[in-house]
């Protein structure tokens, strides 16, 4: 008996539709988020992550309605991220039915925000999303830096130090995206995931780069993470959640 490793399909949504970009560009339409979330839940997904990548804040209403619609039909945990800037934003999303919120840019701009959020709502619902890019050159010791604004803005923050600090501030989970790998289908940045997962006490979700089922396995066995997140391999029907679980189980990973 042991805790199962989680498979989390991610819905990147813009203006109420699921989209998935390649290196944050070239967006393809992948459907209605409520239908997609329900399908994944029925297939046995362990959680759903919903990331609102709508640039303007005008469409927050759409997002809240979408979260409400998903939460009334999907009885597995739901994490909502994108544009979470204030305690009020968190309250609105939790009331709409989210179980956790993912905080990214706002944590970098104001780290105290994570502390306040964890104090008010509890660490169990505060996920800190980290977008990291390798900054060390060949032959140098590995180093990753935090980037914001979809990978465009460097922050000067070391990824490992940042993850430790966020956990100390009350993050209950880390959603770790490799900006080098996101959308490439070349697999997770295993060294990055391992470095952070072995440093922090809270669960880490690996994100960015999944192109096949072996990548999911490697995330767990070599990246040492607690959960694996993927979008496009599921959205475009290349693999289903049951196929992913069957393959992971065949490699000795405990899945639900």
């Amino acid at each position, binding site marked *: 008996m042991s805790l199962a490793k989680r498979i989390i399909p991610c819905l990147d949504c813009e203006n109420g539709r699921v989209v998935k970009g390649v290196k944050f560009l070239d967006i393809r339409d992948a459907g209605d988020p409520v239908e997609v979330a329900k399908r994944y839940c029925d297939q046995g997904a362990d959680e759903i992550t919903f990331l609102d990548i709508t640039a303007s804040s005008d469409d927050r209403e759409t997002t809240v309605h979408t979260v409400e619609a998903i939460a*009334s039909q999907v*009885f597995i945990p739901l994490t909502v991220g994108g544009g979470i800037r204030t305690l009020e934003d968190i309250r609105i999303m939790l009331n709409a039915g989210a179980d956790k919120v993912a905080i990214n840019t706002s944590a970098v701009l104001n780290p105290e925000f994570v502390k306040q959020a964890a104090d008010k*709502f509890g660490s*169990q619902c505060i996920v800190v999303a980290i977008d990291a890019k390798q900054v060390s050159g060949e032959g140098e010791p590995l180093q990753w830096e935090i980037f914001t604004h979809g990978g465009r803005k460097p922050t000067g923050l070391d990824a490992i130090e940042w993850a430790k600090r966020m956990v100390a501030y009350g993050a209950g989970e880390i959603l770790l995206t490799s900006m080098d790998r996101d959308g490439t289908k070349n697999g997770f940045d295993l060294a990055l995931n391992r470095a952070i997962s072995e440093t922090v006490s809270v669960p880490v979700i690996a994100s960015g780069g999944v192109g096949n089922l072996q990548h999911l396995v490697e995330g767990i066995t070599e990246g040492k993470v607690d959960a694996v997140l993927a979008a496009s391999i599921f959205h475009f029907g290349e693999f289903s959640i049951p196929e992913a679980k069957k393959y992971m189980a065949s490699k000795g990973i405990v899945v639900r």
Partner: protein
Amino acid sequence: MNRVVVIDYGMGNLHSVGKALEHVDKNISLSITSDAQQIQDADRLIFPGVGAMRDCMAEIKRLKIDKLLKEARLEKPILGICVGMQAMLDFSEENNGVDCIGLFPGRVERFSEGQKDENNELLKVPHMGWNEVKQTFEHPMWHNIVDKSRFYFVHSYYVTPDTCKENSATIVGESTYPKAFCSALADDNIFAVQFHPEKSQSCGLQLLKNFLSWDGQV
């Protein structure tokens, strides 16, 4: 009409529980409230909870939920969920120690950090995700749920099994992380679970369905 009250003491989002209950039975009369009269009039109660124990207990006492639960346990089925379950015991280690409602004896302790599993992998705290629940006691609430089904957990504190021995509730479900802890307790009208049935897909919905028709007897 099956009158169900989800007890709201201001800690966290209770809509998920409500939505899941309505999903399994559209004909219930559901209220999410701290109103004493509604709690007293209900046919069955759900006592959920998230967040820190000290804040939870402060609100529970302020709203006199502890007193209402002590009365209700003699009269109608009660389902405790997560921190709601923990609050039913005597004492929690959280926040440097908090006295809880004490519906039955028992202690709540924190998972130690840095523990490893049998493969020498680090076990994270909170214990978050889908873990097996071994049904250690035959109970009507387990109806149509296969033994060792997985349910969704998210918690850093747990009910220790060894403190629930005498004159206390019966351990009806057990899980491991890496040591055994109590994932479900039952006593007369009370059934309490550490996991979140409202987030545990079909098994969780079945448990809620069982609760809606449970008469409180074992």
